[in-house]
């Protein structure tokens, strides 16, 4: 299905958030996820179902001042 990740269209074969993160090579720890504007607690990645056209924002820490 087609979803939007960080503003870009991506095709994914899974529907569970955890599986999508693994499919796209994101680390399961160290990323924060917003689903359609709602921030998800990290312990819900295993149970969150993603639907076609959902918008995901996936962020992590980087160096900064």
């Amino acid at each position, binding site marked *: 299905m087609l979803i939007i990740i960080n503003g870009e269209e991506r095709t994914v074969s899974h529907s569970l958030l955890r599986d999508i993160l693994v499919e796209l090579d994101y680390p399961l720890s160290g990323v924060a996820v917003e689903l359609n504007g709602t*921030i998800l607690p990290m312990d819900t990645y295993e149970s969150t179902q993603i639907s076609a056209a959902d918008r995901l924002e996936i962020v992590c820490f980087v*160096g900064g*001042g």
Partner: protein
Amino acid sequence: MGEMIGIDDKQSNTTMKETEYVIGGIDCSDDTFQVGNQCFSSRLLVGTGKFGSYQIMKETILASRTDIVTVALRRAGGSEHSENILDYIPKDIHLMPNTSGARTAEEAVRIARMARVLGCGNLIKIEVIRDQRYLLPDNMETIKATDILAKEGFSVFPYMSPDLMDAKRLVDAGAATVMPLAAPIGSNRGLETKGMIQMLIEEIDIPIIVDAGIGKPSEAAEAMEMGADAVLVNTAIASSDNPILMAQAFHHAVLAGRQAFLAKCGAVQHVAQASSPLTGFLRD
């Protein structure tokens, strides 16, 4: 643990704690930096941007003996970002995410909330910037974001243009500290806003952390001598030829400035005041 020096120790009157601190001869390296009910072991905060590698960053953090490092939040790139910066930051050092990239209070609040999901504690550096040439913070939006995030339990460290009235508004909004800029971010131009920062030190009762623009250890020392509670340094360390050595230099400078502030500098005189006795000269 040494004598705790609280946020009121920048007042000109000598407190009992300070008197005990000096007379007791306690090593000033034990001087604790207190923010609200949290205590930190160092008055040097270090930014993690612009390092050549995470390994150099890690060694620099250790050399600086800092207790708080800032990090930024950005879109993750999947396999392109294989390394996690958190693997290179010692676990006992406090993380302070910043809201860089935010142009409005609303965006800063969103970034802060996402950062908190990552389990890094409650420290947040508010940074709201719309000016792209000098990267000057928008104090008004910063105050709005501070108000919202302080109510949500964050310990808010707002980066601001040094203005006394805005600093008072930040205090009223629940800020834990205020972080006036010394000069534009990354400019290494030094304490250009010295006079304005001095006013904040005198008039604001929460910790003052001089952030941005400090280019040399001597400038960090000067800020601390003035009575700033701490300084935040990134570019001056990261852009040095030897970040690790420069981090050590900043550690010593911040400590030296703090010790000088606690000791209180002697009065400035217009004419010479002899240091040696003016009697018993070897002459008739």
